[in-house]
């Protein structure tokens, strides 16, 4: 018994000094780091909804080559006119194509929203094809885009992260050189979520460590709340703040009162 123990101990010692031990350690270390990274990132993939078949990918590739390849390149590798789409993920395609921004109507400071050119099925096929090119954010699941989160938290996150471009009421705002942050009224929860994870146009990416999926859900909840509940104070005048109020008081407020002064000082016939 005693001998076996000693033998075992010697064996262990020998194992530690084995020439391949360092290599094994590095492998284990890398494996752990990579695994942890994957697990942390998996918070994003928990929100994935995609189950795409090979036929979707093929159909998507055909659609891509017919409609997108002239700018993005035949293998989506990008050209001087447009960026590479390898690794942008299904979410980017679903947002850009689903809101009609892609294909672009014309080149300009930024791609503008317009009626979508493809059906949801075709968009899904395109998304499946682009997703097959490299890993990237996938289309979010309904449970983070349904708007059943905490509106108060969402409002706070929105003010801190989004309002400087999109305005506190989501009415949109100006950026440099003709670019702009679009109004968020009427945008679906899915598209808002996708915009946050993919950062379309000039928008930064809000990854899951910057704003957690629950946080994004709260933001969508807040935006849906203010759209579903019109202002308690009456008509919102575009939610544009003091400029709209100032124009209103001069044109309609003072204008109507001046019209009334003309009326009360008019000579009776």
């Amino acid at each position, binding site marked *: 018994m005693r001998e076996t123990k000693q033998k075992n101990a010697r064996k262990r010692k020998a194992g530690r000094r084995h020439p391949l031990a360092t290599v094994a350690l590095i492998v284990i270390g890398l494996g752990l780091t990579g695994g942890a990274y994957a697990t942390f990132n998996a918070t994003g993939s928990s929100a994935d909804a995609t189950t795409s078949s090979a036929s979707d990918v093929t159909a998507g590739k055909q659609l891509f080559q017919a409609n997108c390849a002239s700018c993005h390149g035949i293998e989506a590798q990008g050209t001087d006119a447009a960026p590479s789409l390898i690794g942008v993920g299904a979410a980017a395609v679903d947002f850009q194509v689903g809101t009609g921004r892609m294909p672009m109507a014309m080149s300009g400071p930024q791609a503008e929203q317009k009626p979508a050119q493809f059906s949801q099925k075709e968009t899904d096929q395109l998304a499946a094809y682009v997703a097959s090119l490299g890993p990237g954010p996938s289309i979010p699941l309904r449970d983070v885009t349904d708007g059943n989160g905490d509106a108060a938290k969402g*409002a706070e996150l929105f003010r801190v992260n989004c309002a400087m471009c999109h305005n506190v009421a989501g009415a949109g705002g100006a950026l440099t050189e003709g670019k702009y942050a679009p109004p968020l009224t009427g945008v679906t929860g899915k598209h808002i979520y996708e915009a946050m994870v993919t950062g379309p146009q000039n928008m930064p990416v809000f990854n899951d460590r910057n704003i957690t999926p629950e946080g994004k859900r709260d933001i969508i909840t807040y935006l849906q709340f203010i759209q579903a509940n019109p202002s308690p104070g009456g008509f919102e005048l575009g939610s544009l703040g003091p400029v709209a109020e100032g124009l209103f008081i001069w044109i309609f407020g003072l204008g109507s009162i001046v019209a009334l002064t003309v009326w009360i*000082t008019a000579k009776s016939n």
Partner: protein
Amino acid sequence: MTATTAAETTAKKRSFTAAASNYIDERTSISGVVKEFGRKIFPDHWSFLLGEIALYSFIVILITGTFLTFFFQASQAEVIYHGSWVPLKGIQMSAAMNSTLNISFDIRGGLLVRQIHHWAALLFVASIGLHMLRIFFTGAFRKPRELNWVIGFTLFVLAMAEGFTGYSLPDDLLSGNGLRIIDGLIKGIPVVGTWISFLLFGGEFPGTAIVGRLYTLHILLLPALVVAFIALHLVFVVVHKHTQYAGPGRTQQNVSGFPILPVYAAKAGGFFFIVFGVVALMASLFTINPIWLYGPYDPSPVSAGTQPDWYIGFADGMLRLIPPHWEFVWLDRTWSWNIIVPVLILVVFLVVVAIYPFVEAWVTGDKREHHILDRPRNQATRTAIGAAGVTFYGTMWAAASSDLIATHFKLTMEGVIHTLQFTLILGPIVAYFITKRICIALQKKDRSVALHGYESGRIVKLPGGEFIEVHEQLDEYERWRLVSYDTYQPLMLRPNSRGKITFVNRLRAGMSRWLFEDRLEPITKGEIESGHGHH
């Protein structure tokens, strides 16, 4: 029998009124006041009611403001919101913001009163502005009313201060951002700026003192000053008597119009309710300052489309128009010319507005009293100066909404700013010359109408085959309106009593020539008579 009873009742009634009036008069001697004021004549013209809009909106502000003080807490103590507005529940905020939200959502009628207060405040400053424009363009600021112009100007500045302090009270994101800009402006003053900022905010911005301090200013000091200056303003209106437009029977010595009692008092009293009604209607239909969207103040976020209320817009716009990088370190201090220059421009602009009556009086050398108003076209230069001023102000004002102009007209923000920078300098010059030419052209038109009548559109063939259009003559009353005005002639440059031509004299003569070189003399009686003979 019945007739006697009725007569007896009326006699009784009359005797009661008489007795009551007598009772009051014997104890207050009020009949003298009624006699003096009740017979005071006010001319009837819509443009004379613009100041009244300001007065009545101020009364509306006082009434609604009193209500708001019952519920507002001017404290920056931190509390957690537990009111009715879901998207702020559980959020930490100051007591000021919390109480403003409670006024909006949990106090009966609170939101309506808050919105009436804010809309009336916007209307107050707007009507003062319009009133000032009327006074300026009709020359109502001339002797003896120069001081009243300055009092009115002071009221305009006080109204802006009232507005800004009120805007800052709810301690929401928008008001905090506004205060941050003020803090930056103050800190941009060389040497003393930082000290003044720390004194005002009670330490580093934002601190916990500013809302309480602004509240004291907003409800105590500033309203007291506004009331005092309004009283002074009205006393002067009574002392000077009201101005009137030129017309038959209207002279520098009389005022033609309605007596205060009963007509004018009834009209003015009714007008108060019209103003109140319009404001209440706006407040019940249109949201103003939705602080529940802005959320509590937090120094990190700034919303897109953050602007001050309209009357501070010109100052905000001036800051936006100054090119960047005007800043250097000298004598161990940062000299922020991108702050100092716009502040100086604003101060000079306001000072010029305040002293304009004295400048004009000095240049024209006119020491006469003026109670008949000018038609703007007949004082082409003054009208042109006014148009230049309006263009300058309007450009600064537009610049405050440069971002919204860019998004709504699909322009680039840089393009908007650069265009407005050019407009700020060239716009007033262009506006000056165009307005002056338009005024002189209108004068020429008036002149031709007064001399030859207006075109009737009736074509007559003369026996010789010639076609002429018949001109209808104006009647005497209409013509009087067109021809009764003064113009000034450029002053001659003359040596003073010691035989010297000083620099000041030269300046004055130069300005006078610049102002009055292009002018049309009013039509003389002789010209009218010969004009008649013409047709």
